[in-house]
């Protein structure tokens, strides 16, 4: 286990996990002295019947619970201020966020406004603007992927001014994250597949990127172990409660790992393909993950090789000759994508070329690749990637990922 010359690690979130973990919420709120929480969620979560489960748990003990379900798929500063007003007007004293990444971001934004009594959220953007604990925030993720229930970041968009604001502070970490398999059981297989691959990409990138440290490593390895084992199980059988719980725990471990170790080229190109072509984040992660490992292999083969045992288990580890172990990691991820492709009747794409939108048009036309490669130069994830990336490097990786061919590693520029 490597000890870097210097590192920092922090995850203050209390994790409460298990079947019936939701039932702990009344006690958790009481611990924080809360009598009237505001539940922040979105229509999709309500439509899937998940809020019914949460409110049933809360109803007995907390009569005053308020539900706001108008979080849009993309966080919006207007909604943040609107919900903050609702929180104040109703005399709420805690926030319970139920949903995916956008709900978590919105809840964190609302928490800044109500805790700092801010009239303008903008004043708190960037790093280090928050200096004291905020109001109690309980996060209940409904996907097993983003890890935002354990990250110290919130991204809020101002759609009128075309601005994307990032907020970074340990005080944005939720007080508690509740992982209950009932919250992810209704996810259809293709969403399960891509959110699961998002989580796996968090764990793996966290393990090879520059900010890695012993604690992020330990979380990452454990996450890889759980996600690789249980993702095919729940994609195949969505109602497997133990599999669902394991995936939630795995995604949470991966979230802790990457929020302390950051991510690299996979996320860098993934963000860019999302902003240029609207590729769903998890789908981009699934496609790009093997390429991230290949691109960085010459710099971190000794690191990547250690992913094999937690992934594939002892038999495969033992039966693979030492020299081939790093490559085995890559090929197992390609195989996993292949399996998920089959389980989702082809909806889970293996390469950019076969990705289609709702009208069956290609999501990523080949001629868009140069634009994605350029957009990636504007994204911060490149900082933490072990090898340098420029426009040509990005394009080379994107072209291979579009075709679905392994990366020709002899063409990767080395310093």
């Amino acid at each position, binding site marked *: 286990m490597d000890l*870097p*010359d*210097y*590192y*920092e690690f922090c995850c203050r979130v209390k994790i409460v996990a298990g079947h019936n973990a939701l039932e702990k919420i009344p006690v958790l709120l009481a611990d924080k002295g809360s009598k009237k929480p505001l539940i922040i969620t979105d229509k999709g979560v309500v439509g899937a019947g998940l809020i019914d489960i949460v409110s049933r748990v809360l109803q007995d003990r907390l009569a005053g619970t308020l539900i706001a379900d108008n979080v849009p798929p993309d966080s919006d500063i207007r909604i943040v201020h609107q919900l903050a007003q609702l929180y104040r007007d109703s005399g709420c004293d805690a926030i319970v966020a139920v949903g995916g990444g956008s709900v978590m971001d919105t809840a964190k934004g609302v928490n800044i406004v109500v805790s700092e009594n801010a009239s303008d959220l903008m004043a708190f953007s*960037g*790093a*280090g603007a928050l200096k004291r604990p905020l109001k109690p925030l309980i996060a209940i993720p409904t996907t097993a992927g983003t890890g935002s229930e354990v990250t110290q970041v919130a991204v809020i968009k101002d759609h009128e001014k075309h601005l994307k604001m*990032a907020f970074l502070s340990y005080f944005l970490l939720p007080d508690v994250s509740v992982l209950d398999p009932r919250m992810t059981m209704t996810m259809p297989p293709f969403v399960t597949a891509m959110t699961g691959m998002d989580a796996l990409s968090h764990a793996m990138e966290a393990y090879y*990127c*520059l*900010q890695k440290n012993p604690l992020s490593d330990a979380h990452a390895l454990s996450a890889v172990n759980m996600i690789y084992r249980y993702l095919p199980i729940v994609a195949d059988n969505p109602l497997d409660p133990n599999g669902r719980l394991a995936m939630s725990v795995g995604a949470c471990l991966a979230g802790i790992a990457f929020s302390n170790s*950051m991510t690299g080229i996979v996320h860098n190109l993934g963000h860019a393909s999302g902003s240029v072509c609207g590729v769903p984040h998890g789908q981009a992660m699934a496609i790009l993950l093997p390429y991230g490992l290949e691109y960085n292999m010459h710099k971190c083969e000794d690191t990547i090789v250690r992913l094999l045992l937690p992934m594939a288990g002892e038999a495969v580890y033992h039966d693979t000759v030492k020299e081939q172990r790093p490559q085995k990691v890559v090929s197992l991820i390609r195989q996993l994508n292949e399996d998920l492709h089959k389980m989702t009747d082809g909806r889970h794409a293996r390469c950019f070329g076969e990705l289609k939108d709702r009208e069956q048009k290609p999501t990523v036309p080949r001629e868009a690749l140069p634009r994605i490669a350029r957009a990636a*130069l*504007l*994204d*911060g994830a*490149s*900082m*933490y990637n*072990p*090898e*340098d990336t420029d426009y040509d490097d990005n394009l080379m990786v994107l072209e291979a990922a579009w075709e679905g061919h392994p990366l020709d590693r002899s063409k990767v*520029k*080395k*310093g």
Partner: protein
Amino acid sequence: MGLVDVVRAGRKPFKRAYVAVFLWFTGRAIQAAAKVDEQVRREFDSLPDDFTFSLGVLPDGPWMLIGKDKGRVKYLGGNPGGRRIYIRLAMKNIETAFLILSFRESTALATARNRLITEGEVPHALAMIRVMDIVEVYLLPKMIARLAIKRYPSWTPGRKVFGRIGIYTRVLLGI
């Protein structure tokens, strides 16, 4: 209150002086590189017309500023003088600044070790980091520059040698 010794934090004048000199040097070198190197010029061209970048040490300096002025890239000393700062790269303390400016930790590693605080928009910050990487290749011998950046570029000998001479001359003359 005899129970407790009250200690006022000391000063580190030598390290401060070293850091100040290096910030001055880096500032003038960036100004020079923007004239000498095509890639650096292109990076600055893509930035806003009143773009200002500041690099320095928390909590109270020293700082250096680089800004665009009527299309030209200029070293602006240590005082913002009312200019809007687009990117502020702050090193957390004087020891950290010393580690980075004596090239014992690369910008990428220092970032990965949480030694820098970046304020401003990410694309601007990345552009400035690319500029500083290029400047380091010009200023430093290959052996040291290799540690300071992720991938040593394969430039033509002409670009490196003439660029290096051009930048050193301009830094010393301040042009």
